[in-house]
């Protein structure tokens, strides 16, 4: 199965925002408008599924959904509106969504945005132009197609990882020897190369390599056993105490055999 991925080379980005423009046009997000919940119009929003973070060193870093290999938003969604496709894109179906916004709480990168101003709101985030690419309408996501310097490119994850390693090896002095997204939170489909640390540009140091949903999955796996255990224990205690009481009562008198009930 071909696995979609995006490789962004921060050293090549000139900050022209062509990716943002292409994304907005392709996905029909409408223009950015300032809102109470959107003090910075250039930040990620429900009408801006990808944007550029500006680092202190003057680099531009693309910000958009990482399409994790084990996505927290998908693990969180109680209705299956967030879905990880076989191609690796994490997509969203507003018709199913009940608007609980647990995906927004769960996302370790905080990449999901909400249509706060709508009475029929949707969760908004990059979907790798999944439907359009699968239907053949687009060859690749709008953002990578629009990039004038090929700073952000689309391809197969393994191929892009190989390309990233090639670049790291070919120009070791140009890059920090790290591929962001290769292992973070269990790996993502959006990979970054950079010559400056990306701690404050979407890849906090606290991320670590373990996939977030793992612990919750383990706990949820115990649910049937917990329920059965509690039920059996309750009945056991009830039966024992009831029995003891009945025996005591029988020893003293011959009345009241319905203990435990109202």
């Amino acid at each position: 199965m071909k696995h979609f991925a995006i490789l962004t080379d921060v050293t090549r980005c000139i900050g022209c925002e062509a990716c943002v423009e292409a994304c907005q046009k392709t996905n029909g997000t409408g223009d950015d408008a300032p809102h109470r919940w959107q003090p910075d119009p250039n930040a990620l929003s429900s009408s801006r599924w990808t944007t550029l973070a500006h680092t202190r060193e003057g680099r531009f870093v693309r910000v958009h959904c990482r399409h994790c290999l084990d996505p927290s938003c998908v693990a969180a969604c109680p209705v299956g509106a967030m879905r990880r496709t076989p191609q690796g894109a994490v997509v969203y179906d507003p018709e199913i969504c009940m608007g609980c916004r647990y995906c927004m709480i769960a996302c370790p990168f905080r990449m999901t945005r909400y249509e706060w101003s709508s009475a029929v709101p949707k969760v908004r985030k990059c979907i790798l132009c999944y439907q359009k690419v699968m239907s053949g309408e687009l060859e690749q996501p709008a953002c990578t197609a629009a990039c004038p310097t090929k700073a952000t490119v689309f391809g197969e994850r393994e191929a892009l990882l190989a390309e990233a390693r090639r670049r790291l090896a070919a120009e070791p002095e140009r890059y920090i020897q790290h591929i962001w997204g290769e292992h973070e939170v269990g790996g993502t489909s959006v990979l970054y190369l950079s010559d400056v640390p990306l701690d404050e540009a979407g890849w906090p140091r606290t991320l670590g390599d373990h996939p977030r949903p793992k612990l919750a999955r383990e706990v949820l796996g115990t649910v049937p056993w917990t329920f059965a255990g509690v039920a059996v224990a309750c009945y056991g205690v009830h039966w024992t105490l009831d029995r003891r009481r009945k025996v005591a009562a029988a020893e003293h008198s011959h009345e009241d055999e319905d203990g435990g009930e109202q």
Partner: protein
Amino acid sequence: MSGANNSRLVLTRAVLWLVVGIAAVVAVNRFARGLGATTALTDATPWGLWIGFDVLAGVALAAGGFVIAATVYIFHLDRYHAIVRPAVLTAFLGYVAVVLGLLMDLGRPWNIWRPMLFWQPHSPLFEVAWCVMLYLTVLALEFAPVVFEGLRLERPLRIMRRLTLLLVIAGIGLSTLHQSSLGTLFLLARDRLHPLWYSPILPLLFLVSAVALGLMMVTCESLASSWLFRHRPEWPLLGGLTRAAAVVSLLYLALRLGDLAWRHQLVYLLEGSWASVLFVFEIGISAVVPALLFLLPSTRTSHAGVATGAVLGVGGFVLYRADVGGIAHLAVGGHHYVPALTEIVVSAGVVSAMALVFLFLVERFPVWEERPQVPGHFTAPMRDRVTGTFFGGPWFSRAHLGAAGLALGMVLGVALVEADAPTSAAARLRPVPAARTALIREVKRNPSPGHRLEVLSPEQVTQDPDGIEAALLVGGGRNGRVVLFPHQAHQQRLGGPASCGKCHHRNLRHDRGTPCTACHRDMYAATDTFAHQPHVEGLGGNASCTKCHQAGTAPARASARACDAPACHGGDVSTAAVAINRSKLPAGYAPGYRRAMHTLCIGCHTRHEQKTKVTTPYLSRCTTCHRDRAVEPEPATVVVARLEAP
């Protein structure tokens, strides 16, 4: 009971109706205009009061139901039998409150049924949804005998009694699961929760805190009803409840602190931040103080001591849930969530509505079936079968007061929603008027800080030429005033002479000579400086393309005639775009957009960038602006693109 005796009840009821009235109006507003108009939620803080209080705390408050049911039916501590029904009723209403709160909070509540049909067993919230739904059913069935008894339906009553044990066990199992699952919910929020609250044993902590909270809640409820219905508190019961609550609280405390110590997270307590203060406060009022009050001989039998402990404990454990639910989420981008007044009102309204239902039910049905007949005690509020009245007080007067409360509440609600509208809805925006140049003189205003500018007419200039400067003025946006545009200050702040391109020609969509509003969005209506459609219409519709886009050159976009073409705005632009620096730098005279870029900016940039190797913002490269002509860059170009730190 006489009417005078019920004054507490009548007034309480009127106040509850008032709150319900306000909340109802706000709720309508929320469904009509969306969450953004009614709440203080943001993308950084997507969950707020309605989840943190109504749902998380509501579930916990209802924990009294399963705790007491277990005490009586499983452990056979029959002396607690008297409070089973009120506890079950509270739990049931607590869950109804949870569902109401959830319906308010869900963006698309009409899809709330979906977890039942489309299973997502990997989601903690899915499990919570199922447990809440099942447990709500169980609680309704557990309470059903009370209703059957009140309506004298003997057969269903017998059937339900036979099911009691089954229901109790199911209820305990379901409660165990989803009290803990509420904690599991936040295992996924590891990256948001402050380390003092995140823990791998969150499920266990939530379960234990729910038991403690349930015990304290039943205590509170018992005290409140004895106050409201003027009977003496049941000390033997309260003593047992509070002792149990103290033990469970201390267990919670040990688990909480032990876990933090085990994982070496206690160090965050010493950081002195608001979070560490909150942690100490929360732990103090939820576990430490109540446990002390419940165990110390001097306070454990005093009315004030037990009441204080129970109220503090309930508040503290509710705070714990609210902290995990949102308050202790690490702020990002300076977003701090403070609930909007409208949110608080809705939460209060849900609780008030449940309290009203509670009062309604206890008056009509034998909720307090086995109140011990202690001399001087008020016996359970029963239906007066002769007159059909309840609790003394003539029915109509109470109804009047309640209706008046509701009506007043709705009026207040409308006022609240109206008052809230301008701040919470998308700010209404005005376009920024075009910049213009003018001759100004600074008018000294002492002692007030800042300065005020006087825009001068030509006559004034000739009369008094002192202190006159040419300046660039822009509209101030909302207040209609004109302000001086400090060009030099902007240039310095944005990075000196190399920064022109950050404003002039940021190359956003369409043409955009990048107005102030591209950065200062707060003031904008539409960010395009070049409104294409009005031009097309004004110049004669579809046939007019070639008036600007000269035929035979491709692509058309790049070959559009600049605004300053003599036939178009040649005259306007050359005067309107005069940007005179207030500094000693030579005045930049921009006779039009195209010439400004190609002659004034790029010329210098090309020379400068070649000389200094400084490449921001690449103005010497054509493709920086003319993206539609961009080609695959040569490797050499890419190397040039590596920036030197400024």
